[in-house]
């Protein structure tokens, strides 16, 4: 499967961008209880997206993506707005906004 399909139309919706801002500011207020929380949470995604988000396959890489894009995509998955999603709509529902923001932050800092 071509990752580009899922990248198309990623952020254009205004509501998506607003949600991102909301989620990011929520995370800025709440300091993670553990300094490595973002890293630890992101490691759960590595089974499919590769270690530190660097995929070696057709699953899209998350490393080096903008944090706000990842947050927006996760929200779209959670809200059922990605009709082609095979699995992310189910996984995205398992994480809070705060957790998603921490993971997104971690991935955004990894080399592509």
């Amino acid at each position: 499967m071509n990752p580009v399909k899922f990248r198309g139309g990623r952020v254009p919706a205004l509501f998506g961008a607003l949600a991102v801002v909301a989620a990011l500011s929520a995370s800025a207020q709440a300091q993670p209880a553990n300094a490595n929380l973002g890293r630890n949470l992101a490691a759960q995604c590595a089974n499919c997206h590769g270690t530190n988000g660097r995929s070696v396959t057709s699953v899209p890489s998350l490393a080096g993506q903008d944090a706000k894009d990842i947050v927006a995509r996760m929200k779209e998955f959670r809200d059922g707005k990605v009709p082609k999603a095979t699995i992310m709509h189910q996984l995205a529902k398992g994480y809070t906004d705060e957790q998603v923001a921490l993971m997104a932050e971690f991935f955004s800092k990894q080399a592509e």
Partner: protein
Amino acid sequence: MSTTFNRRDFVKSAGALGLLGTSAITGCASVGGVAKPRVVVVGGGFGGATAAKYIAMWSDGKIDVTLVERGDAFVSCPLSNLVIGGSKQMADVTVSYDGLGKRGIRRVKGEAVGFDADKKTLSLADGTTLSYDRLILSPGIDFMYESLPGLASADARQKVLAAWKAGPETVALRNQLTAMKDGGVYAIHIPKAPYRCPPGPYERACQVAWYFQQAKPKSKVLILDANEDVVSKKGLFMKAWNGQYKGIVEYRNNQEIQDVDARTNTLKMSFGDDVKADVLNLLPPMRAGNIATQNGLNNSNKRWCLIDWLTYESTAVKNVHILGDALQIAPLMPKSGHMANQHAKVCAAAVVAQLTGEAVNTTPMVANTCYSFIDNRNVVHVASVHRYDAAQKTMVTVPGSGGLSAEANTAEGGFANSWARNIWADMLA
């Protein structure tokens, strides 16, 4: 390579000092206080290899990591049912351990047999002793042959195969199927849950049915399930058995067995007539792997291991952590490779924190996905997300998360192959 390598590099601990002299002392953690903390990991599967890699990566080389593994290369259980069905080869599910060496992880080829919790040493079958500060066991499962006298001999086990640890038995089962005459019966017996990989037996039945459809259309697949019902992905598997495999696959529930006669390939059922098959594939009841069972770590029903879900440390023995299928799992957490990889990361984070004086994360999460191949291209999944519940001190599923595929599809066929390559790289590269 093992003997000389072992002796020179690893017999530094305890009893070996006298034999080898002072040159061996330098690596000993108890001397001088400058040595790195040591983690020894037993078992290079989804749990152990991941733990070794992530401890090396997250400690940035500050922790000395050794992986003890008896095999020469990693052979994946996930996807190995496709070797049995004939659409993949063993080479497609085999991955080298060399990537771990590049991360500074030392690999010792050998069979771990026991440990001394006071001296903090692990012993291998060849007499080697390894010192640890933290020991991580990812021993997988072993079979409870004591419940099946008919499988007491090695000959019987080579005839009536389990093929539930990917490797030579995978090939042997494939060979039995290719040698079988058209019009024959393949029967698979599934033990009562819990067992390794809940959807695995049903996927295997699909793969054998797919092979029969291509090559032996008069043949049958008989699923004899000791459980009351299909344990995983019921609707999705039923759809295949009543659809594309109609007339090939027959499913029977509540099929408990008394024993097996390997000479005649006959199952002695608890209720009803004996069942004979041309190829008989029997998954015996399972328990935590031998090293856990033989060293008192199996403190749940003498079968599985209880751990602290924040650190994966055994509740029976201090400084010993356990991962993967050997665990007494929390509700709705399957015994899967994906799950073992996730256990390993929570454990790795905790062990690095413990050995470097940082705080252990008190809000761990794990997620599971099991992909199953219905044929060579169409795949279904089940997924779930779990969080630590501090009040109950266990993992609970996050409400509303996870789910199943709507139907088998080729998009997930692609993603399942991608998943395999990414998770293998995540543990071994």
